[in-house]
């Protein structure tokens, strides 16, 4: 039981760390901005899901690959693939539907928190 939990969280730590390490190597070597890094990893998630590799990776890495923005991309593609089984309209809209929770959270929490707090260091 204890061993199971250790191995589970160990895998999450190693895989999540590895994903971020790749991001840091990209930053160090190419001077990519954070927006480019995020878009690159998101698209990597979309592609991994579209070619059917993501589920196998997820089974091993768990949150190590779903918490990085790769997971956001894979959820988008997963929704689109699911929608494509129903019809063309669903193929186009189910991607966004699948990430509706995350996007809603990002917009609402982002708005409320930016409203409540003000930037200290940058306001002169």
């Amino acid at each position, binding site marked *: 039981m204890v061993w199971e939990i250790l191995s*589970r969280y160990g895998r*999450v*730590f190693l895989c*999540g*760390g*590895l*994903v*971020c*390490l790749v*991001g*840091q190597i*990209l*930053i*160090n070597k190419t001077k990519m901005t*954070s*927006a480019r890094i*995020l*878009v690159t990893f*998101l*698209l990597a998630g979309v592609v991994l*899901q*579209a070619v059917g590799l993501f589920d196998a990776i997820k089974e091993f890495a*768990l*949150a*190590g690959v*779903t*918490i*990085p*923005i790769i*997971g*956001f*991309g894979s*959820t*988008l*593609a997963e929704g*689109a*693939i699911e929608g*494509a089984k129903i*019809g*063309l309209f669903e*193929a186009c809209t*189910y*991607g*966004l539907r699948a990430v509706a*929770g*995350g996007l809603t*959270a*990002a*917009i609402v*929490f*982002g*708005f409320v*928190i*930016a*409203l409540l*707090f*003000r*930037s*200290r260091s940058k*306001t002169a």
Partner: protein
Amino acid sequence: MIDAKSYAEIVKEATPKTQEARTLFAAFGIGGVICMIGQAVFDVYAQFLNADEKTVSALTGMTMIFFGALLTGVGVYDKIGYYAGAGSIVPITGFANSIVSPAMEFHNEGIVFGLMARMFGVAGPIIVSGVCSSVAVGIIYYIVGVAA
């Protein structure tokens, strides 16, 4: 006058090797810890909520976005980010940070054209590329499905 290329070379020479190793180490460690927190949130929700895996997964993402937004609001996330680099950018909490950070910065320019408009400076490209690529994937799968 020095051109951009030789400037880059000077910077590269002046940057100590150990510093680069430290950024890699910090990105790995902090990125890994953030993912472990995400896994813990997921496990707690899976244990106590009577919900399917997709809902638990979505709630986990929303919770991590909340943490990222809140820690950005109180000024902690940017301090972590100073050391963590990609370790704080790549996880979904970094997505929340990319929304809250500019929104707070431009709060002074007004709620609508400052805060609301600037929220998506970084998140905008992410949402546009994500939604467009998911539509492309959906259409391809639809066509393949119809043809098969």
